[in-house]
């Protein structure tokens, strides 16, 4: 039981990390928390369901197309809704919260309240270390999640674009003085944040089917991970995501399944009480 709960925690933790990276990127650059993060996650799940199951596309093509569409949608949202609120955090919170409710109800209208599930990528189960049999789809999700996280890290740490991102989140004005077009960067990073939510969505949708409100707990967990790891810290997201995934699943296995999502908030409360800047955050953040 310990082994299988840990394995579940690892899989879901990788996805939490991925989803939290998207939140963290946007917080770091724009100081905006996107409360509709979970709805972008769900949107990607619906898209991949639509393309793969209804239109019969190849699974990989459907996934890439879904992420691209959500990325474009994110760019549009930034341009129309977030851009006018620069410098006014209050309104970006209000607008993204309203957007999340609008999207939830739009999904309800379009797709109905039923869970939808895109087809799996692989079938069968594998014997893990001779301990237990584990669904191949979940293992594939774990591998895919780790790959996407690695790509994000490589992009932020190694490329020129990543250098701009890091510079801007460290000191916005200095970056501007050095010729960074921060307005365009805002738009791009918001879109990328949404695309990371979308990546988490398409990876997890074959395991956990999407419903109109299934994004809420995922987004909430991503927020907890970001606070736990420290706002704007990338390693914080990875460590925080895995921690939260493990705590939730071990807690569900040994304490109570009904309270699965509460354990994350207990962590949030502890972090705020003991070390509000998070594991990897700066003291003054």
């Amino acid at each position, binding site marked *: 039981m310990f082994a299988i709960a840990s394995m579940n925690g690892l899989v879901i933790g990788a996805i939490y990390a991925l989803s939290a990276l998207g939140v963290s990127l946007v917080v770091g650059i724009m100081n905006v928390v996107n409360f509709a993060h979970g709805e972008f996650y769900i949107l990607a799940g619906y898209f991949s369901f639509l393309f793969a199951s209804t239109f019969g596309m190849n699974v990989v093509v459907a996934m890439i197309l879904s992420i691209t569409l959500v990325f474009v949608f994110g760019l549009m949202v930034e341009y129309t809704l977030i851009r006018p609120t620069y410098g006014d955090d209050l309104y970006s919170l209000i607008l993204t919260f*309203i957007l999340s409710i609008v999207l939830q109800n739009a999904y309800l209208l379009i797709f109905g309240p039923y869970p939808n599930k895109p087809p799996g990528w692989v079938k069968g189960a594998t014997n893990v270390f001779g301990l237990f049999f584990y669904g191949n789809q979940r293992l594939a999700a774990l591998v895919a999640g780790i790959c996407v996280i690695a790509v994000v890290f490589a992009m932020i740490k190694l490329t020129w674009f990543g250098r701009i991102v890091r510079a801007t989140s460290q000191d916005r004005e200095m970056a501007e003085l050095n010729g960074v077009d921060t307005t365009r960067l805002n738009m791009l990073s918001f879109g990328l944040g949404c695309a990371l939510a979308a990546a988490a969505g398409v990876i997890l949708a074959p395991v956990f089917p999407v419903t109109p409100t299934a994004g809420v707990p995922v987004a909430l967990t991503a927020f907890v991970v970001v606070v736990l790891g420290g706002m704007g810290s990338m390693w914080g997201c990875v460590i925080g995501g895995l921690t939260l995934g493990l705590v939730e699943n071990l807690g569900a296995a040994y304490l109570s399944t009904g309270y699965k999502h509460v354990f994350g908030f207990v962590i949030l409360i502890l972090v705020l009480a003991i070390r509000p800047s998070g594991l990897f955050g700066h003291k003054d953040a």
Partner: protein
Amino acid sequence: MKRYRNKFIYGAGLVLFAILPWTLGVYNQHVLIVCLFYTMMAASWNLLAGYTGQISFGHAAFAGIGAYASGILAVKAGLHPWVGVIAGTGLAALFGLLVGMLCLRMGGIYLSLTTLGFSEILHIVINNEYEITRGTMGLQVPGLMVDYSKLAYFYIFLAATLFTLVVVYKLVHSNAGLNFRAVQNDERAASALGVDVVRVRLLAFTVSSGLAGLAGALYGHYMLLITPHIPSLDQQFLVLSMTVIGGLGSFVGPVIGAFCLEILSEYIRAWGEYHVLVFGLIALIVARFAPKGLVGIYKARWGKSRPAAA
């Protein structure tokens, strides 16, 4: 002279409003009572969001705490509902104080995140502890008086609404209110002038949560059934849209917003699920293009250039 004229107009309007339900049927009386409930919710949320610039997503959750605390005390402990209402209000304020102490020193975004999490925890607890709360079935509670009468409830809600509005008005126009706005306008400047920023926010958040608890407790005893819908995010969203559409940071804005949206929602009830979507789109457009809401539009169009009377 003008001051007295205004007072006379407000007083006359209030008297007219107070005799209005005598001319209406039971259904319209119900709509008025729900309007008053939302006025309380929106006005107290506005105290926090509009005057100190902190966004709480747990306002409906605090109303839920008031409702469930009062309801459970009445059903399980057999206390008189009025005692429960007071206890519910106090408990909501206490939870507000605790949550506020936890996250307000970290600034804006943390309060929004924590209250959202808090509201989710409450939702999970209510659904899991169904032996006490009856979960999604809803908890049946006794009414505030022996003989159920819409008119009596109307006057109770009217009194509670006036109480809420007076508290908000007095607070905003007191020294503390000046501090609220100072903190909202420029946190650092206010802090440099000796305003204890955290304490100011904590005061606003605690009072606002307590008032939400009062509204929730009364609402529960009016509906006679407390369901997890009271502390839901949908409810939170309604309160938020009412304030934003009416006018964030203005005194009459939330009142106007609450009445407009509640009456509108009765008209489009036939559309069922669509009505949240419609409200969302309206709220999105208003928040994007007219961030000061209906009151802001009115002022920009017809308002004379005189010092803002809040």
